[in-house]
């Protein structure tokens, strides 16, 4: 059978009790750094599991219930309770868990008006969510050709060892220090997830750019945006400036 079907044949529906450990680990990673009242709760979960090296690779689909937020110091605008649909990939090897992928998006309960013209932005965001929709088991060709590390079947014997050595090289190269073992484990999960994100971005770029490990590879997307970017730029243009004459007008 072609590799993909063989892979799926090895993947099997996992019983609920079997899923709880990986699901709780994924939730713990999702809630990391959040205050008690701000943590999401696990809703429904289902998934598949397949052999991976010395352990098992769980592909989970779960709903998370995000609590409402009315505290302006936490969320700029009041946010009502919302449900997210998440896809997680958790490697459980020798009793250690590693979060390899996390894709979450709001559960879109609205039905957009038929034939309603989509603005460039709406269409774009729809395309974004379809491109980055929660990871399903029947991997599409693009990703399976792009994510070698996660798509070899079985996973390379020592997948997490490989990832650990790449991460170690990153720590040395960029002179990272983490205060605790837990922090280092968390950062390695983030790093591993970012490797997958970078490969997706690579697959979808139409130029000659190369994406991969950079000095920002141990930051979550939220951390990177919050620390280094400037969302004010999208909110307004500030003081109106006069328009320059074109060179040809001179």
């Amino acid at each position, binding site marked *: 059978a072609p590799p993909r079907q063989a892979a799926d044949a090895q993947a099997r529906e996992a019983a609920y009790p079997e899923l709880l450990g990986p699901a709780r680990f994924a939730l713990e990673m999702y809630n990391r750094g959040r205050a008690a009242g701000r943590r999401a709760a696990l809703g429904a979960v289902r998934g598949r599991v397949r052999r991976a090296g010395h352990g098992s690779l769980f592909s989970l689909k779960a709903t998370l219930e995000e609590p409402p937020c009315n505290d302006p110091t936490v969320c700029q605008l009041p946010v009502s309770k919302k449900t997210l649909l998440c896809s997680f990939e958790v490697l459980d090897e020798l009793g250690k868990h590693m979060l390899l992928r996390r894709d979450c998006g709001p559960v879109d309960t609205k039905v957009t008006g038929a034939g309603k013209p989509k603005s460039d932005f709406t269409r774009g965001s729809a395309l974004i969510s379809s491109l980055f929709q929660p990871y399903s088991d029947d991997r599409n060709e693009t990703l399976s050709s792009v994510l070698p590390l996660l798509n070899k079947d079985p996973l390379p014997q020592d997948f997490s060892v490989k990832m650990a050595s790449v991460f170690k090289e990153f720590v040395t190269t960029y002179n990272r220090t983490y205060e605790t073992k837990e922090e280092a484990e968390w950062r390695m999960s983030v790093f591993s997830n970012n490797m997958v994100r970078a490969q997706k971005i690579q697959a979808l770029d139409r130029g000659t750019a190369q994406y991969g490990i950079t000095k920002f590879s141990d930051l979550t997307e939220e951390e990177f945006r919050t620390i280094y970017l400037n969302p004010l*730029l999208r909110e307004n243009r500030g003081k109106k400036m006069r328009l*320059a004459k074109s060179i040809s007008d001179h």
Partner: protein
Amino acid sequence: APPPEWDWRSKGAVTKVKDQGMCGSCWAFSVTGNVEGQWFLKEGTLLSLSEQELLDCDKVDKACLGGLPSNAYSAIMTLGGLETEDDYSYQGHLQACSFSAKKARVYINDSMELSQNEQKLAAWLAKKGPISVAINAFGMQFYRHGISHPLRPLCSPWLIDHAVLLVGYGNRSGIPFWAIKNSWGTDWGEEGYYYLHRGSGACGVNTMASSAVVN
């Protein structure tokens, strides 16, 4: 029509790549880079100018929480000019304003918005100097080298969240690019530079182009 390629770095109009550190102050670096170029073209002297002065003394913008180039140009005019990097060095966090008009080495007279037509932007750049622009930073967290050309919906011009400096343009293997000076240090990208596809409005590069005016 503009020259087929141009690069202000080879003409001495661009200071070294700087590092904003863990602070959302890209707007200040984009503006000082532009003013450094305008001053060079007018006075023939390349001075590295102070971003910290803008963080501390531009009360309209929000220092590490972000800002807008148009406000920064106004602040420079209101303050009476910019001090050099040496005189008012970068700390990467907000401090009390300690600007001294006596120490200001550079002034500007006005600022202006530039065309959204990339052909006209290239012509303007080749004639008038590096341009302050704002882009969607999609993928830049993991950018290593080469010409970036994300799918438009992934790098929407509606989601601008980073300010940088156009210093040149050209073609690599027939692919047109903008040479962009970033402010994340030389250990990111191509020695601190980012190369973005030119001519397709990639990542909103043409939507917020601006420059100071030095008479």
